[in-house]
């Protein structure tokens, strides 16, 4: 962040309000795009920078002003760098996964002033995801601001781009083996200071990290869909997650403009454990013919002051995903309190889900 006098053009790097030369107000300028003009590779460790060698790049912005930036990666002279502009953009957030949650996290992290490195397995999928992010971001944002926010996001297909990240959020398929492989990879290449977080909604953090060297830096950060709107993040402590990492994860949640809660590594954490017992029970009620979809939703909205009824919510989440989560919960707890209702099983078996066929519980009921 630079501060420039509107009348004489002098610039400061400090948050001053009035120009000392002409007394005029000073404007803030956020600069994010630089070219590499020079560099030095530092071999001497110092108290504040004990890990060597590292590089300090001399970066030049479009106005010809310089700044320095430390990096562990080698860059070539002339490379374009999108960089943290000032105090408000202190962190680099890595995001893995181009699904609804991955895209949502990218959007939120970039909006709240962080540098984002967005990874997918292929150029094509990451490009497609960026198209959707662009569309979402452009709603209600001035072109100038949009440019700045988009400038914070870089895309990659390589894990190596994450070496300097402060926090990496994994948001891929809910498959234990896939997540394990990702965390093993991250653990081996990332700086020891990097916090690794999984956005899993149903898997155990302790299980995901059972084979890795530094499980203490792995934490669960469970976001809620739609991520840009939903304010909650459940911060999950794995068996070996350190208190410091837990604290930092909550600080990141705050930085993302979210509210966080602490919860132990158990199936469904807080929200899903309560939510899916309700959705499943609503399905049981429908199955038993106790009330229809509309009335169950209406009752919960008005009677319990919920903003959405259980079926509306199930349709929003995706009935296939709902069933998957309920089955996972059922397997994790003794007894049959999470036994999936037949109507939900049938609905999904017929290939229905809002995302796949566009059919919703509301229509399903009427066709039965």
């Amino acid at each position, binding site marked *: 962040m630079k501060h420039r006098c509107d009348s004489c053009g002098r610039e400061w790097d400090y948050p001053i309000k009035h120009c000392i030369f002409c007394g005029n107000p000073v404007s803030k300028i956020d600069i994010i795009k630089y070219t590499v003009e020079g560099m030095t590779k*530092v071999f001497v460790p110092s*108290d504040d920078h004990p890990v060597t060698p590292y590089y300090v790049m001399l970066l030049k912005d479009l106005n010809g002003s*310089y700044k320095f930036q430390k990096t562990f990666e080698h860059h070539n002279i002339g490379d374009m760098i999108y960089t943290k502009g000032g105090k408000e953009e202190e962190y680099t957030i890595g995001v893995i996964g181009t699904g609804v949650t991955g895209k949502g996290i990218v959007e939120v992290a970039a909006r709240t002033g962080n540098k984002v490195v967005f990874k997918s397995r292929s150029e094509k999928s990451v490009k497609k995801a960026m198209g959707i992010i662009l569309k979402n971001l452009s709603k209600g944002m001035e072109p100038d601001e949009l440019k700045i926010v988009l400038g914070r996001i870089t895309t990659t297909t390589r894990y190596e781009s994450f070496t300097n990240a402060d926090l990496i959020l994994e948001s891929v398929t809910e498959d234990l083996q896939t997540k394990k492989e990702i965390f093993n990879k991250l653990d081996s290449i990332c700086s020891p200071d990097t916090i690794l977080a999984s956005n899993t909604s149903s898997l155990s953090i302790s299980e995901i990290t059972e084979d890795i060297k530094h499980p203490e830096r792995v934490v669960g950060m469970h976001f809620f869909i739609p991520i840009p709107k939903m304010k909650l993040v459940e911060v999950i402590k794995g068996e070996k997650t350190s208190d410091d990492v837990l604290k930092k994860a909550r600080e990141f949640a705050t930085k993302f403009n979210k509210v966080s809660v602490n919860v132990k590594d158990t199936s469904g954490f807080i929200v899903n454990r309560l939510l899916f017992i309700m959705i499943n029970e609503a399905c049981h009620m429908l199955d038993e013919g106790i009330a229809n979809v509309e009335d169950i939703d209406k009752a919960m909205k008005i009677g319990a002051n919920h903003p959405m009824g259980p079926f509306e919510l199930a349709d929003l989440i995706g009935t296939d995903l709902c069933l998957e989560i309920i089955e996972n919960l059922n397997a994790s707890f003794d007894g049959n309190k999470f036994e999936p209702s037949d109507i939900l099983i049938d609905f999904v078996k017929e290939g229905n889900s809002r995302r796949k066929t566009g059919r919703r519980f509301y229509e399903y009921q009427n066709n039965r």
Partner: protein
Amino acid sequence: MYITGIGRTKFGVFDTSLPELIYEAMYKALNDSPIGITDVDAVIFANFLAGPNQGQLHLNSLIASLLPRTNLPIIRVEAACASGGIAVNQAFSMPKKFENILIVGAEKLNDHTTKTIARNLAMAGDALRDQKEGLIFPAQYAILADQYLRKYDASHDDLMLVSLKNHRNATLNPLAHFYHKDVDLEAINSSPMVCSPLNLFDCCPISDGAAAIVVSMIKKGDRDVKIIGSTVKTDAISLSQRTDLTTFKAAILAAKDAYKTANVGPKDIDIAEVHDCFTIAEIIAMEDLGFCNKGEGVKLIRDDETSLSGRLPINTDGGLIGDGHPVGASGIAQICEIVEQLRGGAGQRQVPDAKIGLAHNIGGAGGTAVVHILEGSK
């Protein structure tokens, strides 16, 4: 203003404490001058890092402890590596209330690990723009070298020649940090990398030491050396806040003003002490001081024009690279060397017929520049 006495400690790695170093230099300077401590009207003390290094501040009062019952007015000045130069300029610029002023600079660096020293020396740069990004002190000059070597027809081989010359001069200066060190190009070339493109021999050492001078508004004798020009100029603290990273604008401006005050030009200078904290700094200094055109500093070195037998000997005491760089003392030690030369008392490294000398002292990476021009009585 006349310099009536000089004194300094040996520079190097010592067990001696900061107050002891200060005391030794003051003692020697007063001993060298017809002015005694009771004739001194004020003291100016230059130091950079006693706060973070020794946990010692309130340094003007610390000096008072070394000069019991004098109750003199004493001030401490700090401008990173230019602290010494600033102190001399301070005396020069003071209202002429004080007739005789004792100026002393000292630094104690070797009582910490190099990691801590690297962190503390980095305090000469901007806390956020430089320090936070890992731009430790040698890295600042590495960036300057990087930019210079990209811009001009110069290579690291040229920088090595600066190191070689200054180490050779140091072997003729018994008080130098590297008095006993024989250095050749092979040793320079094979030394470990510090911050590319600078290796160990491109850098000045981390030295302890102190230097002092006694100045008077009144000429005391024929060995007095007159300060005929003294100028301080500044620039933004971080290199990233400048436009040209192959030159120090503050030094150009300070030189211009000092030449004007002294009524001399670069061609009139017989010897110079320039701030060679790194080899690249000496190249840049020669250009900033007008000894040659921009980009031609390397030519002076290649053509041997700045060695002891050259047209314009530079850093005859070994410079910061060979003599050592006890930060707060350096600017004053440069003055001491010019005085020795102008008096004709520099022994084996004496430059014949030196009449006008220049001292160029830089703080940080050019954020402060002090230029002094001195004239001998002979």
